[in-house]
Each structure stands twice: as C-alpha cells, then as structure tokens.
C-alpha cells in the first residue's frame, strides 16, 4: 500500500510539473501588444488529483484479455462476408432514409480517404516502404487537373487518366533515387519531398495561384452539366432528363464517381496482389535479403509499388479537386500525410478492410463529434497513441501471405481474400 501511494504520489508530482506552466498559466494578450498571464490553478489541481487517484486505483486493474473468439484479429475469419456487406452498404447509402446531404457529403470524404489509404497501403502495407510524403502525389493529381483545365480546358473525365499518369510518373521519378534507403531514412526523405512540393506550389503564383489557390471545373455527366448555372454550350442534367434542378443531384453524382473509382482501385490492388509483382512486394516486406537471394529485383519491385500507390493518389487528387471546385496548397500539408498513414497503420498494414474501418474511425467519427471541434485534433493524436499502445500491429493485423502454396495443407488458408 505504501509503495502504491508513493508511486501514485510520484505520478501526481509529475502531473503537477507538466501541467503547472502549460495548463495553469495561460499567456493572453494584455492590451497594447504585450503579453499577460491568466492563472488557472484550479485546472492544475483537478489534473493532479485525477492523475494521483487514477494511478492509485487503476494501476492494478488490468483489462481482462478477450477470449480468442472475440479478438478483433479474427474478424475476417468469422465468415461474415464483410467486403460484400460494405460494398452493398456503400451502393445503397444515398437512398437510405437517414442519408441527408450532409451524410452523403461526409461519406464522399470518407471514401476519398479510403482511396488514399488503399493506395498508401500498397506502398506501406504491402511493400513495407514508409512514405511520409504521400500527400505530394495527391497534390500532383489535384494540380494536374486544375492546371490542365485552366490552360488547356480539359474536362474532369479527360484529365482523370492524365492525373493518375502524372502522379505515377512522379512517383517513379522521386522513387528512383531514394528507394534504396532504409525505412526511417526513406520516411524523412519522402516527408522532405512532400514539403518541397507544397513550398513550390505556394511560391509559383503565376502558374499555380500560389497561396490563393486555383479554381477547378466541376465534372459533367456524359457532357451534361450538373451545376445550377450551366456553362455556355452545355445542356444541364436536370434539363435533359426533364426534372427539376436539385443540388442533391450533384452530391449523389460525386459520391458515385468516387465510389466507382474506389471499387476500381480496390479491384486493381486485389488483382495485383496475386500477380508475381504483388507477391514480390510482400516477400520484400518480410525479408529483403532473402528476396534478393531468390532473384527479386528490389529496386524494380519497390518502384512499381511506389508508382502504383502514387497513381492511385493522383486519381484521388483529381477527384478531390473537382469535388471541392477549388484547391490551394493548404489542403496538402504534412497533417494530411500523417492522417493517411494513420489510416493504414491503425487499420492493420496490408488489410483492405482495415483501411475502410480506420477511415470510418479517423475521418468519420471526428466529423460526427463536431461539437468537440477544438478537441478534435487532440483526440486524434491520443487515438493514434492509444491504438498503437493497445494494438501495435493495427486493428486488423493479419500478415498472412495473399497466396500460399497449395501443396501444403494449412488450416483455413487465405481467409479474407
């Protein structure tokens, strides 16, 4: 008991030291440009008391281990067809009774992140390359469409493949010199690239609009405009089908575009995983030296993963631009890369379902809890730490190879593919 009191006392003391300056003394404007202090010692006292009591009473309480059949890792093996369930849910979402404009808009945002997460999952989850500057490719996709539209009058559908192509080639270009670096170094270099792209976008106002951003045209439905004010020479969607104009039409339209893009991307990834190149990614992730000994070219294999991840980010960026109708470098900060990486890692690296779940948790939930807007990012940071401490391998961690040799009898191989 004495030992526990002492332990809790030390924890309380540490909490006192941590909270006294930052929580207890608030720097405020005291007028005429000078700083003043406001004191909040009550907050310090509450914090210290909470830490002391928490440490005293909770330190011995260990969360009971879940019985094996409830463990989250088993989720794909419970034979609920999760993938079809999510796909059907996504397809019918806009017609569900609770689907207001806000819900469909939010779902569109979540799907963009699922798309980005799936792309980064190829790089980080499958090939094991830590990329902290993924947002660079997202930005390349978005800006290629914006610039193509501004200078060459491309429409969304014409620019979409080019945006993916540009982002993919960009991935090749960046990846070529840096991919032989080890994990952490690669992380910092890619972070550097992400920042370089952002700084260049800010400082090239004549071309990119600089910090003021650039306007982007909306997509059309087979040549039919979806806006209220129809551009010259186009027929509006509402007029063509002889129905009244409703802003919901565009919200739905955008939602289905991103859903289609996402499903195509997932199909592509699932197919690639079974091809030799996809299996080489996973082999390389598990053991680079052994893979090299087996004749896998590490540079080519890594480059292919990097380029495909970049290409998917390019598609996502192109869609993001047309959905927002306006882009600026502000949308492509390091926080964005960190969010996407968090989606991949929290979901469980290499797991497609994990990406969907983590996007719902990280992008969907904060939006729902809007009244805590100030605490949003704090909760986001805490969630990242807590999930890592609780499940260091992510929510759905299965690192089974996508394909196993069929001659070996294994219990339930390839679940969740």
């Amino acid at each position, binding site marked *: 008991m004495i030992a526990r009191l002492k332990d809790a006392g030390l924890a309380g003391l540490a909490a006192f030291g941590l909270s006294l300056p930052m929580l207890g003394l608030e720097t405020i404007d005291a007028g005429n440009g000078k700083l003043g202090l406001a004191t909040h010692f009550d907050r310090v006292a509450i914090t210290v008391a909470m830490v002391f009591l928490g440490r005293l009473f909770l330190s011995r309480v260990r969360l009971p281990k879940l019985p094996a059949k409830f463990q989250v890792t088993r989720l794909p093996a419970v034979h609920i067809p999760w993938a079809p369930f999510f796909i059907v849910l996504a397809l019918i979402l806009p017609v569900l009774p609770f689907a207001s404009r806000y819900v469909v808009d939010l779902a569109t945002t979540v799907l963009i992140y699922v798309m980005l997460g799936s792309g980064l999952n190829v790089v980080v989850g499958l090939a094991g390359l830590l990329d902290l500057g993924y947002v660079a490719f997202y930005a390349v996709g978005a800006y290629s469409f914006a610039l193509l539209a501004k200078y060459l009058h491309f429409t969304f559908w014409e620019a979409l493949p080019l945006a993916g192509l540009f982002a993919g080639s960009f991935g090749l270009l960046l990846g070529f010199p840096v991919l032989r670096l080890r994990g952490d170094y690669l992380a910092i270099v890619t972070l550097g690239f992400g920042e370089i792209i952002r*700084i260049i976008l800010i400082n090239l106002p004549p071309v990119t609009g600089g910090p003021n951003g650039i306007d982007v045209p909306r997509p059309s439905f087979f040549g039919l405009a979806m806006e209220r004010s129809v551009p010259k020479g186009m027929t509006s969607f509402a007029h063509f089908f002889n129905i009244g104009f409703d802003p919901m039409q565009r919200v739905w339209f955008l939602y289905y575009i991103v859903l289609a893009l996402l499903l195509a991307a997932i199909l592509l990834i699932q197919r690639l995983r079974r091809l030799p190149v996809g299996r080489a990614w996973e082999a390389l992730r598990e053991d680079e030296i052994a893979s090299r000994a087996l004749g896998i070219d590490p540079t080519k294999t890594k480059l292919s993963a990097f380029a495909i991840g970049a290409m998917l980010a390019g598609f996502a960026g192109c869609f993001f631009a047309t959905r927002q109708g306006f882009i600026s470098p502000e949308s492509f900060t390091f926080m964005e890369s960190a969010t996407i990486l968090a989606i991949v890692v929290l979901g469980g690296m290499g797991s497609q379902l994990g990406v969907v779940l983590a996007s719902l948790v990280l992008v969907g939930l904060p939006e729902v809890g809007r009244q805590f807007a100030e605490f949003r990012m704090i909760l986001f*940071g805490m969630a990242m730490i807590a999930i890592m401490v609780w499940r260091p391998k992510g929510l759905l961690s299965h690192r089974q190879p996508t394909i196993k040799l069929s001659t070996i009898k294994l219990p339930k191989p390839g679940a969740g593919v």
Partner: protein
Amino acid sequence: MAYFLQQTINGLTLGAIYGLIAIGYTMVYGIIGMINFAHGDIYMIGAFISVIVFLVLGAAGVTYVPAAILVMLLASMCLTALYGWAVERIAYRPLRRSPRLAPLISAIGMSILLQNSVQLLQGARDKAIPPLIQGGIVLMEQDGFTVTLSWLQILIIGMTVALMAGFSWVIAATPLGRAQRACEQDRVMASLLGIDVDRTISWTFMIGAALAAVAGLMVTLYWGVADFFMGFLAGVKAFTAAVLGGVGSLPGAMLGGMLIGLIEALYSGYFSVEYKDVSVFAVLILVLIFRPTGLLGRPEVEKV
C-alpha cells in the same frame, strides 16, 4: 565580403540552435533506433515554458536581465526534461518490443497531441516578448554595410559550445554515459550486465529534451516569438542535421547543425528566401543518396 561574413555569423547562430535539437534526435536514434518525431514539439514546449517563466518573472518584478535569463534557462530545462520523460513513458516505452513502425506512428500522434494541446491551452497567436539583450560588436564596415556580432549571438554560440563540451564529458566519463553507450551497442547484453535499460533510456530522453529547451529559449530570445507550430519545421531541419552529420554521432549532430544553418542562411542571403526550406530538404536528399551514413557516421552492416 561583408555581406558574406554577416550571413555566416547568422548561419552559425541558427546552426547552433539546430545542433542542440539534433543531439536529441541522434541520441534517441542511437539508443532505441527510432525517430522521435515529437522532439520538435518538445523544443516548442521549451520555448513556451521560457515565455511563461519570463512573464512570471516580470510579474514578480525581477528586472536584472542575467538573473532572469538564468532562471528562464533552468526552469525551462527542468520542466521540458519532465516533458521528455513523460513522452517516452507514455508513448514509447509500452512499444519497446513492437514492430518498427508502431513507435513512429505513436510519435506522430504525440506530436499532434502536443501541438494541439498547446494551441488549445495557450492560444494560436504568436507569443512575442521584448528583446532582453541588445547591442553587439561591430566587426567591420565595408561599402556602408556593417557587420555586427550581437551579444545574443555570442551567448547562443558560447552556450552551445559549453553544453556540447559538458555533454561530451557526460557521455565519455560518467556512469550514465557508459550505460548509454552500452545500451546503444547491445540492449540485451547491457541489461544482463546489470544496467537498468529503461532508466538509461529515460535519462536519454530527458537530456535531449533539456537541450531542446535551451534551443527553444535561445530562439525565443533571438527572434522574440514562439508559436505552437514552430516545432515541426525546426524538428525536420534538426533531423536533417543529425542525418547529415551521421546519426548516432554527437560531434556529427553539431557539425550537421552548423552546416544546415549555414546553408539556410547563405541560400536565403544569395538566392531566395522563399526556397530556403527547399534548400535544406534538397541537402538532406542528396546526402542520403550519396552518403547515407552521414559525414561522421559509421557505416551500418546489414545482417540477416
């Protein structure tokens, strides 16, 4: 020539600050092999604590500048070291045996948490304090351009050199330093020989945080402002410095810091201010491509 000299002085001052932060990165990387992504934010916390202590001293009526700076320095170092300890205890220690990416993610989470807590608790505006040390020595005058070495720059560089010397002595000659070097070489073996590895790692984080706090105080005195986002860029640049010098090498961190400071100052002096950060990142990329071990680092042997 005069302009070049002035930019060199400014660059070295900046470099001393980067070097102090870089030591935290390089020590932690050496001992547990992870990039402590929240280290830049620890530096930001150090700067904020300096500002707060300055305001407390002002309210208490302390007007003697050297005493005020000394109190700011000590308070900031101690309290920031406590932050360094808490960050390691909460976010990294539970992950000692987990996959390599896990501590990095929790470090990014910690960085987001610290930044946004400070923004919420202290406000998003720049915190400005009046200059405490003014004046300096005029070194030369040429074509109407005056080269000055301010007292503050002398203080920053002198303080950095003194801390480096003291710190090298700690690493080379004290039991703690020996324990740190042992843990860096082989943690399991060190623990078998009776070294408390967790305690050594905690000390490493605390020392790194205290040095970052000195950097935070210096920057606050030098530029006169602190804001909640200042840690991100400074952190990335300091990490670049650590990599440039060779991760794991203390003199390397200092050398790397000085070089990064010089590159940044000279680039913004002669080419463009907008792209000074790009110049630093470009250096990082070039170093990693052509000399991944850094200038003073040991080559790493890949084992199966």
